[in-house]
């Protein structure tokens, strides 16, 4: 279901290449808060590059399928998880400019300010997994 080790390393490398290239060529930071947030308003002129980048993400599966890759159906949790999780992600992203790839982009530029947000995100994710375990199975197994 999830990639083999080689795929994970290669795919991760592509993500790193994309986020560095994006910043070098266009000056944009690859983060949900910036990319989606700029569509809600903000600095002029950012929306066009945001839409282009987000469109690239959405069409990438179609391109892979066109080149013969198998369609991947993500294993998704039930809609209550998706709704609660989505609202928290959106609120948090806007409050703290928090995002997974944005934090990696900051770390890669050796910005010490990126360490705090990464730890906060990981802490939140850890708490969430304990919560899920408790809510789903009725106890931490």
């Amino acid at each position: 279901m999830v990639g083999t080790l080689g795929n994970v390393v290669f795919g991760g490398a592509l993500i790193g290449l994309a986020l560095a290239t994006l910043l070098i060529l266009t000056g944009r930071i690859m983060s949900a808060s910036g990319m989606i947030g700029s569509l809600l308003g903000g600095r002029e002129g950012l929306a066009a590059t945001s839409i282009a980048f987000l469109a690239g993400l959405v069409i990438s599966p179609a391109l892979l399928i066109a080149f013969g890759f198998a369609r991947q159906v993500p294993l998704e949790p039930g809609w209550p998880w998706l709704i609660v999780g989505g609202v928290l992600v959106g609120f948090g992203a806007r409050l703290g400019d928090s995002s997974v790839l944005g934090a990696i982009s900051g770390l890669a530029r050796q910005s010490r300010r990126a360490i705090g947000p990464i730890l906060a995100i990981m802490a939140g994710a850890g708490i969430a997994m304990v919560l899920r375990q408790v809510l789903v199975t009725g106890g931490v197994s």
Partner: protein
Amino acid sequence: MIRLAALFCGIVCGVGLILSGLFQPAFLQAFVRPAGVWDMTLGLGLLSALVVAILVFALTRRLSGPLLGGEAEHLADKPAWKTGVGGVLFGLGWGLSGYFPLGALVALGFFAPGAAIFLSAVLFGMVAHDVVANGGRLTIEGLRARG
């Protein structure tokens, strides 16, 4: 040209998220498992992204601005409590749903119905933050305000 570059980077990033499987909600759950064995592949994928980005940035250190013009985007200097609380909320939502926004966009490309639900909720959360930050008013100015 700048839009074409952004589109291209979006495609490369999407392909990376698909090949690595990082966009899959199940990936995170395999990684952060409170009482089980930790599957380090998520960490490995993110580490790989980090190392490549560090290398590219090191090679292009002398550039003064974006190659295609314009100026580099700078994140607003937010107080530590905002990045801290925002980060924890983001992580909570990520852990509960398994999705993060850019990964969910890739899943949307696979016509995953949950990704559409998740992304709608993300937009709602962002607008909700702006409404709260603007004293409960939903205005055009409110939507335009940053942070």
